[in-house]
């Protein structure tokens, strides 16, 4: 490839960034358009004369994740037809389904078409843990405000990958660690760097570890229920089901609290009694009938039929949309103690 050749780039974005719509358009089917759409403008500016975004591929996040195999086939054939030298997806920031879609499609483009790919995500995006070992993912902040910082890094790394140039370590290029390790010469040998780090630590100055401890955050599976007929089952959801009117004002995204609500004597959630506070998915179906997210009606039936001991009279709820891992952990650590105190035997946790 001559150094002067302008590289062809295909850019992948979701329905939101394409300006098609929010969650009500998440079922948008894959389409390909010529030229730049939405955030592609920022990439185009940094690509300059080195590369041109010839096409933009758009797919709804809901459609992608719910029709995975079909969506993959449709998208790969569109991308192949555009004949790119480089494929760029996102950045997805902290949008979970978008991140998963970006990672999945990058991985597929590399494997099936042999084309270089790069994406961008916030480190807590579930797409990161799924694809950081296979796809170069530039680390971004958790919102689209970070585009100006993400675009140059994605473009620079993308160009290097497409030109098959040598790729530096994650700390130099700005991608999330997970790919093959890279050898490089540092400013001093390890013993000196360790002492420098220690001195900084003692002086209360900021320092960066060279080897973060791996985070094996797994929990032992709970013991199975022996006799379901005697068991108390509790419902928990990240789908934001709340009593009509959302009395505690649980935020539609980035929740700062959870709700605890009484369903004593409630046999069915209806349009009149319950709704969802969740902002990230189309709320129409949950607002019509919240049993579609929190199956109270069926559990009451099973309770009456004696198939379960009883349904716990309190349920716990928050919105999973963009809510930080730290907050989710704190909410659950707190209400888990309440579940223990109430002698709940098992939990059905539902997510949208």
């Amino acid at each position, binding site marked *: 490839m001559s150094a002067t050749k302008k590289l062809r780039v295909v850019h992948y974005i979701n329905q939101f960034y394409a300006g098609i719509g929010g*969650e009500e358009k*998440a079922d948008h089917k894959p389409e390909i358009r010529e030229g730049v759409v939405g955030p592609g403008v920022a990439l185009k500016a940094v690509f300059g004369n080195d590369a041109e975004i010839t096409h933009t591929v758009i797919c709804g996040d*809901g459609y992608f*994740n*719910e029709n995975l195999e079909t969506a993959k086939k449709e998208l790969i054939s569109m991308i192949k037809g555009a004949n790119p030298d480089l494929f760029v997806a996102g950045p997805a920031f902290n949008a*979970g*389904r978008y991140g*998963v879609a970006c990672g999945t499609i990058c991985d597929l483009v590399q494997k099936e078409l042999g084309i270089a790919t790069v994406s961008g995500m916030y480190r807590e995006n*579930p797409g990161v*843990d*799924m694809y950081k070992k296979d796809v170069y993912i530039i680390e971004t902040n958790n919102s689209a405000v970070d585009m100006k910082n993400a675009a140059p890094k994605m473009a620079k790394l993308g160009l290097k990958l497409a030109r098959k140039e040598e790729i530096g370590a994650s700390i130099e290029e700005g991608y999330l660690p997970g790919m093959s390790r890279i050898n490089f010469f540092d400013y001093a040998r390890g013993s000196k760097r360790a002492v420098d780090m220690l001195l900084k630590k003692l002086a209360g100055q900021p320092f960066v570890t060279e080897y973060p401890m791996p985070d094996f*955050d*797994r*929990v*032992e*599976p*709970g*013991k*199975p*229920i022996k006799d*379901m007929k005697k*068991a108390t089952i509790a419902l*928990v959801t*990240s*789908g934001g089901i709340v009593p009509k009117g959302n009395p505690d004002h649980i935020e539609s995204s980035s929740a700062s609290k959870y709700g605890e609500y009484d369903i004593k004597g409630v046999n069915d959630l209806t349009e009149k009694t319950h709704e969802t506070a969740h902002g990230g*998915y189309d*709320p*129409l*179906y*949950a607002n*019509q*009938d919240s*049993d*579609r*997210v*929190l*199956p109270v009606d*069926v559990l009451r*039936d*099973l309770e009456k039929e004696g*198939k*379960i001991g009883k349904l716990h009279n309190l349920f716990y709820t*928050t919105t999973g949309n963009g809510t930080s891992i730290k907050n*989710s*952990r704190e*909410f*659950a650590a707190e209400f*888990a*103690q309440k*579940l*223990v105190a109430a002698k*709940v*035997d*098992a*939990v*059905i*946790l*539902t*997510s*949208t």
Partner: protein
Amino acid sequence: MVKEIEKTGIPVVHVCTVTPISITVGANRIVPAIAIPYPFGNPAKTSQEEKQIRRKLVETALNALTTPVTEQTIFEVK
């Protein structure tokens, strides 16, 4: 949330549509749901059929809770 609850020893079954996220997060018992905006339903069906679908899903979830697991396991609705 799944892990914080399960840490106390209470078994949790996670019913969700995008199961790869659940695997990444670390749920041990997972049941695939219908769709993101209506995990336990299907507005295209009659309300009676929809409740049948929901019941099957809940029964699969309860079955998962009575099944011993040693690693992350996905329980498909039969």
